[in-house]
């Protein structure tokens, strides 16, 4: 976690606007505070392990940042994680796919699930909130139906490298997250695609009248959201060694909280990957910190829920004061 945060903090000075800077300072203070409070916290082992644990949420939060910047939302990501995990395990064990093909197949299913969201949102004009609530039920239901609540285990040893292995001491999946984070950040900051997303969120009509391809951009981001959920499913299965139908349950909360905490406006038009990275780190820090002080896992989601509401409240009252 801290690696990602430090990278963005170090590269940041000219990228980070005020919100991200503020968040980064809070993050650093929290790190120091927790470190002073508990000696097991600020150890490389603990920090790297936290990085491993936050990767699944982190992967999905990247396209979710895109989606929220356009003023949309995707509630189906957790369900897609469940569906893809099942597709991975079942296509390997029950359909007899070779494992590498099964992995590719489950990623494809994830992308397809996201594409269907995007297609209905752009063509039929169903609001994203409603569409993804509906597919949240549908995709989770498909995971249940296909798996019949059976789990899959017994993957070969090499399969666990992604979820449990390390490269030069850094968890494999954390490296992937960092690479994708930098790529997403650059895409958002430097490309016409990224600029299109901001324009859609700030004023969709003007974006259309400026000859930007709004529908194509939306289709791409919802597809990416599904694909990232599929990748997260792969990482998750590899980390916990089992495939279950309830995987990814409630992920939408953590993902949306990370993005919103990172300064993206839930109304669209603003947000950065660097902010999301800090938001993500803060949420993981919260979970870890509470766990180290003896609070159970279920109480942490209380805190995340409260943090989500509070950060939106603070952001919207700041916005109102500025106007």
């Amino acid at each position: 976690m801290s690696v990602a945060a430090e990278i963005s903090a170090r590269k940041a000075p000219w990228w980070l606007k005020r919100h991200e800077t503020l968040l980064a300072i809070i993050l650093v203070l929290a790190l120091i505070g927790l470190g002073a409070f508990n000696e097991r916290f600020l150890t490389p082992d603990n920090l790297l392990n936290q990085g491993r644990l936050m990767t699944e949420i982190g992967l999905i939060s990247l396209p979710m940042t895109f989606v929220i910047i356009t003023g949309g939302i995707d509630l189906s990501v957790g369900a897609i994680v469940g569906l893809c995990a099942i597709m991975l395990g079942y296509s390997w064990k029950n359909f007899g796919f070779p494992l590498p093909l099964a992995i590719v197949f489950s990623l494809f299913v994830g992308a397809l699930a996201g594409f269907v969201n995007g297609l209905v949102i752009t063509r039929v004009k169903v609001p994203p909130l409603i569409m993804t609530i509906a597919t949240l039920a549908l995709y989770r239901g498909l995971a249940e139906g296909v798996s019949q609540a059976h789990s899959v285990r017994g993957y070969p040893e090499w399969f666990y490298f992604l979820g449990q292995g390390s490269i030069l001491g850094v968890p494999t999946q954390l490296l992937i997250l960092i690479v994708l984070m930098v790529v997403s950040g650059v895409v958002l900051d430097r490309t016409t695609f990224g600029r299109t997303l901001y324009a859609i969120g700030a004023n969709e009509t003007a974006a259309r009248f400026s000859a930007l391809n709004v529908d194509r951009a939306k289709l791409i981001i919802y597809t990416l959201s599904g694909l990232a959920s599929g990748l997260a499913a792969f990482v998750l299965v590899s980390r916990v060694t089992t495939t279950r139908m309830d995987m990814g349950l409630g992920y939408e909360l953590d993902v949306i909280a990370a993005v919103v905490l990172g300064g993206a406006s839930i109304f669209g038009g603003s947000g950065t990957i660097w902010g999301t990275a800090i938001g993500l780190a803060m949420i993981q820090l919260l979970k870890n910190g509470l766990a180290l002080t003896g609070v159970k896992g279920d109480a942490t989601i209380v805190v995340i829920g409260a943090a989500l509401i509070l950060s939106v409240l603070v952001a919207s009252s700041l916005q109102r004061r500025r106007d």
Partner: protein
Amino acid sequence: MSATAFAGAASARTGGLRRFASQEALLAVAVISLAVVVGAINPRFLAYRNVADILLGNAYIAIAAIGMSMVIISGNIDISVGSLIGVLATISGSLAVAGAPTFVSWLVPLILGVAVMAAQGAVVAYLRIPSIVVTLGMLSILKGGLISVTGGRWITDLPQSFHLADLNVVGLPMPVVIMVLATALAAIWMRYSPRGRATYATGGNAEAARLCGVDPQRTVVMVFAIHGLFAGIATLVYATQLRVIQSNTPAGLELTVITASVVGGVSILGGVGTVVGSTLAAILIAEITSALVFINVSPYWTDALRGGLILATVIADILRRQRRAAREWKK
């Protein structure tokens, strides 16, 4: 003009036989024809025992869907209701076991339901935070809070007097009576009270509602409060049927409730729909779930079916609106 016919006119326009093509009529036909078809395949489906199971086991979903329909009609959404019912059931059961008078253990969930939902409604209405954010946050607060406080302990040894749902009224089981009464009262309220009409106005066109002297913000708080009341009643029906309260949230309950509302004819864009339809839809969904068992389909497909149903209804609703808008242009 009855409440049913009113909504029928809303979706199918006025006049003659077309009124019968309403969403409610469609749902009623679906409920009956599904019963006939599955009953023909497996007569045990229509046995008293099974019909009673379907109704008793799902009455609380229908009751919760009434409030959800109002919330959606007012242009909002609530995904915290499932967690709230879980929390209220645990509180109610704990009170009963701790020796509180029965009426207290029945009354407290109603009061807390109203309080929690009214608070959410106030944040949505006055602080202008989208209802999805508020209720998503509340969902996790309630869910996490419940498990971390109770540690997942089950509540057993409930006193006999606690079991409201075991009573009968003129030979009918209490949950069914409450479901029918709640639906009827809500339908009448939505139809005949000024505030009920204000709910439609707020969801349909909040700005115009304001110009007509309706206060959209107060209306939203009121609607959430009423939704909380129905969530409390649903909790009673649900919790007092159980011998053991598991201190958790019925999985996916909020989605079942939303599905019942949407399939029942509530336009997800706000402003249209009735509560009668949502009750019928709740029964239909329960019936489908049960029918799957009787025709030997795994119940694990239920959720996928429910998802497909809500998706199809939403898309059909939006396409119907677009066609209507196109027709209006031509006039």
